[in-house]
């Protein structure tokens, strides 16, 4: 029965061969996808606009002027015209990025945090706990998302906080479902059994073995919801249930400019273009991530 003790003096200065980890592989694949990279750049530009909006904008977003109402595109001093209260469109579009992105992304982030916890617990625990949690989720799933969002918003009232709450609630069930599904798949893999056989408790196993394998797919699914969230959030503002005037937010701007359709149609349509671009970018980004992570289904 030998005593195996390694003598460090005898082992030569070692260089351990490294290999490419999972995330390195993913980013390599992602970088090769031109469409996805383009989408990522667009999103970075949008974020830049959100952060530096106030510095970039030529005018004050709240500066109204009755005389300068609804001036057309190309009007001197106001390249993209003015809105129904005489405020500069270019400014409002740029400054509006911050709030619009915030309203679209925050619910998904919150739903990701809450929904993934719910789903992972349900998926790992299995049995009665799983059934109880998932059946409750199913009830909320039985509502079409738009309906639920509007009903919740309508009931809670307009305003930023209320909209965030209702949208978060709308996105929790789908994220929880995906989390549960992925966790259940991982749970049945042998390496989880091996970890259990080592005597580890559930918390440790989830932390070390489950999370690393599960958060990736859930995250990618969540990114695919951002585009939907942007449209829903701006939709709520469009109906008057979301952001309240005079805050610059693209959906709200579409609402207040509706009456201007006949007078200055292109100005009235502009905020929607921003929403469209953002939505496309996030969809393409999400698709690119999914391909890079080679997730089927």
């Amino acid at each position: 029965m030998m005593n195996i003790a390694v003598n460090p003096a005898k082992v030569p200065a070692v260089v351990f061969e490294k290999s490419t980890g999972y995330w390195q592989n993913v980013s390599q694949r992602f970088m090769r996808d031109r469409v996805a990279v383009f989408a990522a750049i667009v999103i970075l530009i949008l974020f830049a606009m959100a952060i530096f909006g106030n510095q970039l904008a030529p005018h004050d977003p709240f500066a109204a002027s009755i005389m300068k109402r609804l001036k057309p595109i190309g009007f001197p001093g106001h390249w993209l015209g003015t809105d129904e209260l005489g405020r500069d469109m270019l400014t409002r579009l740029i400054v509006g990025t911050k709030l619009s992105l915030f309203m679209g992304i925050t619910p998904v982030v919150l739903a990701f945090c809450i929904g993934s916890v719910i789903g992972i617990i349900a998926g790992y625990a299995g049995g009665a706990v799983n059934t109880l949690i998932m059946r409750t989720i199913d009830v909320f799933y039985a509502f079409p998302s738009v309906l639920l969002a509007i009903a919740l918003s309508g009931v809670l009232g307009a305003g930023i906080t209320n909209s965030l709450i209702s949208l978060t609630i709308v996105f929790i069930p789908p994220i929880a479902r995906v989390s549960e599904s992925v966790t259940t798949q991982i749970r049945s893999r042998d390496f989880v059994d091996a970890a259990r056989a080592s005597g580890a408790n559930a918390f440790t196993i989830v932390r070390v073995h489950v999370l690393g394998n599960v958060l990736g797919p859930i995250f990618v699914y969540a990114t695919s919801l951002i585009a939907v969230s942007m449209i829903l959030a701006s939709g709520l503002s469009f109906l008057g249930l979301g952001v309240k005037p005079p805050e610059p937010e693209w959906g709200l701007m579409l609402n207040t400019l509706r009456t201007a359709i006949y007078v200055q149609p292109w100005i009235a349509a502009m905020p929607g273009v921003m929403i469209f671009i953002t939505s496309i970018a996030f969809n393409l980004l999400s698709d690119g991530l999914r391909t890079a992570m080679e997730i089927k289904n």
Partner: protein
Amino acid sequence: MNTHTTQSMDITPHAHADVGGPTQPLLMVQDLIKHFALPKDILGRSSGVVRAVDGIDFAVRKGETLGVVGESGCGKSTTARLLMNLTVPDHGDIIFDGQSVGSKELSLKEFRRQAQMVFQDSYASLNPRLTIEDSVAFAPQVHGVDKQAAIDRARDLLARVGLDPRRFAERYPHELSGGQRQRVNIARALALQPRLIILDEAVSALDKSVEAQVLNLLLDLKEEFGLTYVFISHDLNVVRYISDRVMVMYLGQVVEIGDCETLFESPRHPYTRALLSSVPSMDPDNRTEEPPLSGDPPNPINPPSGCRFHTRCVHAESVCSTTMPKLVTDAQGTGVACLMHVVRSGHSAAPLSEQEAA
């Protein structure tokens, strides 16, 4: 110069005390039962129960390798999972070195320090997100070893199983071949310095040449660390090569158990005989004329009454369909569950007295 020999790097055998002494079997299984309920239909009626493991008893002596063989569906893998408590048994006792697992003397967590398992699918057994050394170092950390010491131990073990740590420690499972991964799994099983290792079809998925290497590695490790193995496989040649004693299972029960060579040379249970004769011979003159076993193995949901093998047995008589033969093991750990070997069982070939049976 030896500048250090730390406790954590010490891979002496039996970091755990030998509680029961040399005559105490390391593992004793008593009346282990596991039934899986089938989904109920619309009216709540159960469609039945899969009797995966239906009352088995056996013992594993310290330092031996017990081979477990049987056809698919006989319950071998379920037994392995029951031993490790990955599946909770419905009934039965597992006694490790004289102490009941899950009792105050021996908690489940403590048992899992001393008994480990190697699975069949080498890829699925490793977390694709962890490096090899992290996978091997996980279990020691769970039991309180600090991270660097665990990593050092992991690298040491990798070297022991034939994988150069400099090349492999920081790699990921998908970069290794099947044989290499199985070595990693073995290293992982050794990380807690266990006394018992259960190998569930551990070499079945490997190419033959690799299989031979891994088998020899297992034998070396057993010798070096004083391990005890339960080796489950459907490959009779492999079992014969590595085992000291062999246990044959059929439809959730043990039908025969005994010394390896004796069992292979002169099998007593009709099923064992049939199973062994199904191994193709290399000798062209020694051809198998008739299939040794007729029909498909019956369903574990509705096993035949009485002796479970009677529907396929060439020696079956009417008493076989009514009476269930019990497995009785003697002092050497040999036993057979067949009415032909039970004194005055009612079978025409049964011995009439104890002397005849001996």
